[in-house]
């Protein structure tokens, strides 16, 4: 099966800090990849490079068979325009640690904004689909609530619905439960498990090792901008080979 995301030797520096030091991953369609690692290990940066919220310094990223950010002509890579990058982003949906719901729009308006403004779909049709999505994340009653009127868990579920409304082939989750009060984590993870069961390809940066063990097809452990260990959840999280992985898991579970 053709992988839906391929990164090859991706490097990224922020000033003198090397955030990504040659990262290569492949994710087959329909799989769930969890990326774990200490903060500053580059896992969020990798996710943001896949969605072009960061520009990579070298290497290459393909999403759904398409080279990201550049057009190849002969032996040169030409940078794409703003509009072309925006179009490429439609392949993936992104969920942020801090939800980032549009504060001046209700839950329903947040969800239909992309379909109506970007994809130019009919408003009535977008609303119908948005209501189905709200139902799916269990928030039909909150369609007219503004983000400031919702709890963190509710906001994150609306954010997932907003990303799904674009009908992406791939969902990227950047620490989706890290900003939540402990009692609200479960409701968001439940929606994500449901999504994984439906066959969505997902890349999840997370500290929720339980979720990774239960849902992931593959787990990658990153540290200092590089992949330290990868394998099945059993291999990486239960029987890690590398000392750094063992230390991290011990620290998280402590």
């Amino acid at each position: 099966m053709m992988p839906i995301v391929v990164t090859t030797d991706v490097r990224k520096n922020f000033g003198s800090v090397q955030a990504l030091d040659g990262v290569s991953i492949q994710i087959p369609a329909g799989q769930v990849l969890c990326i774990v690692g200490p903060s500053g290990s580059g896992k969020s940066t990798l996710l943001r490079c896949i969605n072009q919220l960061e520009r990579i310094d070298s290497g290459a990223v393909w999403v759904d068979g398409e080279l990201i950010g550049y057009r190849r002509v002969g032996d040169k890579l030409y940078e794409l325009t703003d509009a072309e990058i925006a179009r490429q982003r439609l392949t993936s949906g992104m969920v942020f640690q801090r939800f980032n719901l549009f504060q001046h729009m209700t839950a329903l308006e947040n969800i239909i904004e992309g379909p109506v403004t970007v994809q130019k779909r009919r408003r009535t049709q977008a609303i119908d689909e948005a209501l189905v999505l709200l139902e799916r994340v269990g928030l039909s009653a909150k369609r007219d609530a503004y983000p400031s009127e919702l709890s963190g868990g509710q906001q994150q579920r609306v954010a997932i619905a907003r990303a799904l409304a674009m009908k992406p082939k791939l969902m990227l989750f950047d620490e989706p439960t890290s900003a939540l009060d402990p009692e609200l984590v479960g409701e968001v993870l439940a929606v994500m498990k449901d999504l994984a069961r439906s066959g969505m390809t997902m890349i999840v940066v997370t500290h929720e090792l339980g979720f990774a063990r239960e849902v992931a097809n593959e787990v990658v452990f990153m540290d200092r901008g590089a992949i330290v260990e990868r394998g099945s959840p059993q291999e990486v999280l239960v029987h890690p080979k590398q000392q750094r992985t063992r230390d991290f898991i011990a620290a998280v579970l402590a």
Partner: protein
Amino acid sequence: MSTTAPSPVGTGQTAHFDPSIAHLTHVPRRHYGRWIASALILAAFALVVKAFAEGQIDWAVVGQFFTAQSIISGLGNTIIMTVCAMALGITLGVLFAIMVMSPNPVLKGVAVFYIWFFRGTPLLLQLLLWFNLALVFPRIGIPGLFEARMVDVMTPFVATLLGLGINQGAYTAEVVRSGILSVDAGQTEAAKAIGMTRLTTLRRIVLPQAMRVIIPPVGNEVISMVKLTSIASVIGFAEVLRNAQTVYYANARVIELLIVSAGWYLIIVTLLSIGQHFLERYFAKGTGRRSRPAMRPAVEG
């Protein structure tokens, strides 16, 4: 001097409690200072009112000219100029704020120069420059398409509009820029993530949220603009103060006509303040500051 040590204030009295005082009536503190201050201010105010009532002001003339033809038409010009100059100022302000924040160094340079120049020179000087532009460029036009004499184009209205509007744009650009900066970067990232381009993000996501920060200072600037139009009287623009002057040059009722003008400025500014209040409420949506019935921040899961 006494040789006894100061008595311990707190400790000695808390030693015995008297539960019976729980029934006693609480008497609020008397604010004698406020009563005295009020009395003094009222007295002073009465003196001022008396002075004006007995002074050399013919209040009948004030009433007579308050709705005089010439004053009302000047008032109309003041309002039209405020609206036009502010519209031009806000348009330029948004445009140049976006240019200042643009990654394009040419656009950014132009905008920085614009703000530097028009904030850096007096408004009165700019008005005089526009009005006397014919001294530099006697004729204006696009070769072959149209041509006109500058003195015909640069009427007092046009000169005032350009002077006030372009100067206002330089200030509004800074207000709009601070409004844009006040919107969380996460909003822009979320907009990008659903495939919006930079300009769509600005129009749909960032500017509507920036409005909450932009409206109060711009409201302030509208109010200030109403009054700024009066300096256009120096280049002969027939706004309310200019027309009041024309009248008092003829009838010598200087103070009466100045009072008429002051009254009208106060009326316009009061109406604008009320409008600003409603505008602020509209753009506060989603911030939780606009109270909506039966909608409190939810805490349940």
